[in-house]
């Protein structure tokens, strides 16, 4: 894979890796006993490992010019494998956290394994590790196919992918050591944020440079969603992470904002991370993989455009619905609530568009678990966006906020929408990328699908029940006007639901493990007939691909 690089690219790779090594060394020296020192050592080791990797193939013959006539899919392949590995790690930690809430002794009396540290490790591993790698991998794939242009060079995609995974590693290891900015979904400290900043700008530049060479003047809608994801995440990340480090030898930093401004900035970031990381990017995935897998064009291209601009205009304003009944001015809360309600239009536009695309191809949904993953994703996208708009109403929020209902809502979105569309897209791309006729075992894809659906429903129903009970118990008064239940009574009432949630989470985790195994076996089982779609030759009407007839 590294041998695919040309001589000058290998030299450039060595220079970049050397820079990483030196930065890591400087961090390690400046940080000393501080967690920054440990992270410096990690960065340095990553740089050295990369240098060895490049030197190992440095004198191999250069790749021929023929490579330029093909798409550059190596980074996508690696991203998909990394996404699945992060999924398994993140879901394992998630289920562990879930069991900790049932059996608090599962911290094993260690600081690093306490709830407050492994919970962000879970969220970062699944959102950034699994989701982010899935997005980077599929976006580079979709970008090249829809532009019909090869990526501009062979170094920058690797810089983005590996730099991003280094960021994820710094984030996860930092939490275990207690490094955090205490901003939800933006926990990593200043030096990791700087790394992500550079990586993200390069990612956007790759997108622009490839689009600049596209064949069709019209940019396919999936690319708009992916671009919104990249651009807005860059803005959000930059603003919310404005901070001053205590010193260059210290991991700790202080935010540029304070008080209610800090809260508003954080939730402007937080909800737009949901909007542009967990929604826009994955909609890009959906608008490419779902029509291709179903063999039908998107039901209404016009609706996809209106939905796109609706999402970009309206999502930006909804963050304040996280701060109902706080010191935030009332009108700002109302603004967030109103925009959340209006957001239902573009959200259901996309969800309806996806389901109407499948209308007439339900036999394919029945027979093809990969397409079924995408169908469930579209359904849960519709459900979760409805629920989210509803929960943003101030009076509903007074019941739901701070309860498990929020956790249930997030997981309906994360498991039902984000993970399902990602698994569907990965199962669709793996045979195309590795030129296999199909996945190693379609039966295991079915197993994964049903485990994921069972886990999803168990999880979400458990949290809906527990959340509403919790919310009602917190606001029940007796005849003398005092609270009927002590806090610990509400905790005890949650226990059965916590058990159910942890079991559901285990199902979902087990499905991901099966998925990883199936993907590894698909890659390792050579000698299968290649999928016609992925064959690198003119497609002279191959037999047996009725799935690709337009307008069927």
């Amino acid at each position: 894979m590294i041998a695919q690089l040309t001589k000058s690219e290998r030299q450039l790779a060595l220079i970049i890796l050397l820079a990483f090594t030196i930065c890591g060394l400087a961090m390690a020296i400046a940080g000393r006993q501080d967690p920054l020192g440990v992270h410096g050592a990690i960065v340095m080791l990553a740089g050295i490992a990369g240098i060895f990797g490049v030197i190992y193939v440095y004198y191999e013959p250069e790749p021929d010019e023929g490579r330029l006539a093909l798409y550059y899919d190596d980074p996508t392949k690696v991203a998909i494998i990394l996404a699945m590995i992060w999924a398994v790690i993140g879901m394992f930690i998630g289920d562990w956290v879930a069991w900790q809430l049932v059996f608090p002794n599962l911290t094993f009396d260690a600081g690093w394994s306490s709830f407050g540290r492994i919970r962000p490790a879970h969220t970062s591993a699944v959102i950034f590790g699994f989701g982010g790698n899935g997005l980077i991998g599929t976006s580079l794939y979709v970008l090249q196919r829809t532009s019909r242009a090869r990526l501009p060079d062979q170094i920058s995609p690797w810089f983005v992918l590996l730099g991003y995974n280094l960021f994820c590693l710094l984030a996860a290891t930092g939490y275990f050591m207690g490094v955090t900015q205490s901003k939800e979904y933006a926990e990593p400290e200043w030096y990791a944020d700087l790394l992500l900043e550079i990586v993200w700008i390069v990612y956007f530049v790759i997108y622009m440079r490839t689009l600049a060479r596209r064949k069709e003047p019209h940019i396919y809608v999936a690319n708009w969603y992916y671009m919104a994801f990249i651009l807005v995440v860059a803005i959000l990340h930059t603003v919310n992470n404005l901070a001053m480090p205590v010193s260059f030898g210290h991991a700790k930093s202080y935010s540029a904002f304070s008080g209610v401004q800090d809260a508003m900035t954080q939730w402007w970031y937080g909800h737009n991370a949901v909007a542009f990381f967990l929604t826009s990017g994955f909609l890009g995935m959906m608008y490419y993989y779902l029509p291709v897998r179903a063999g039908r064009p998107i039901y209404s291209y016009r609706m996809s455009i209106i939905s796109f601009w609706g999402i970009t205009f309206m999502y930006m304003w909804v963050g304040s619905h996280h701060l109902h009944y706080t010191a935030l001015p009332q009108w700002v809360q109302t603004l967030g609530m109103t925009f959340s309600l209006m957001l239902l239009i573009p959200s259901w536009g996309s969800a309806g568009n996806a389901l109407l695309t499948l209308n007439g191809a339900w036999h394919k949904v029945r027979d093809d678990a990969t397409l079924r993953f995408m169908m469930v994703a579209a359904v849960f996208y519709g459900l979760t966006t409805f629920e989210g708009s509803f929960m943003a109403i101030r009076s509903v929020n007074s019941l739901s906020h701070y309860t498990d209902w929020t956790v249930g809502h997030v997981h309906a979105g994360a498991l039902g929408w984000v993970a399902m569309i990602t698994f569907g897209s990965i199962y669709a791309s793996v045979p195309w990328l590795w030129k296999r006729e199909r996945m190693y075992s379609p039966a295991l894809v079915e197993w994964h699908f049903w485990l994921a659906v069972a886990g999803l429903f168990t999880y979400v129903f458990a949290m809906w029940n527990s959340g509403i009970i919790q919310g009602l118990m917190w606001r029940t008064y007796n005849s003398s006007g005092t609270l009927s239940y002590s806090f610990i009574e509400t905790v005890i009432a949650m226990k059965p639901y916590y058990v159910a949630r942890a079991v559901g989470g285990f199902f979902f985790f087990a499905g991901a493990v099966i998925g990883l195994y199936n993907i590894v076996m698909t890659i390792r089982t050579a000698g299968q007939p290649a999928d016609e779609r992925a064959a690198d030759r003119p497609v002279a009407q191959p037999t047996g691909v009725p799935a690709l007839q337009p307008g069927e």
Partner: protein
Amino acid sequence: MEHETTVWFAKSFGLFYLIAMSIGVVVYAYWPKNKTSFDSAAQSILDPSVEDKPYEAKRWQ
């Protein structure tokens, strides 16, 4: 800049520019002439005659 001024600006200008952008998007999406390019874009990802490789084998300059 006073808080009151900011609020006034956000509530007035904010309302009109968002409405204007919304109208602009709907007009663009439903402009009859655009239909052909939208339809061909929707079909483009499904075209079986398209090979799975870049349309020109030129190196990025």
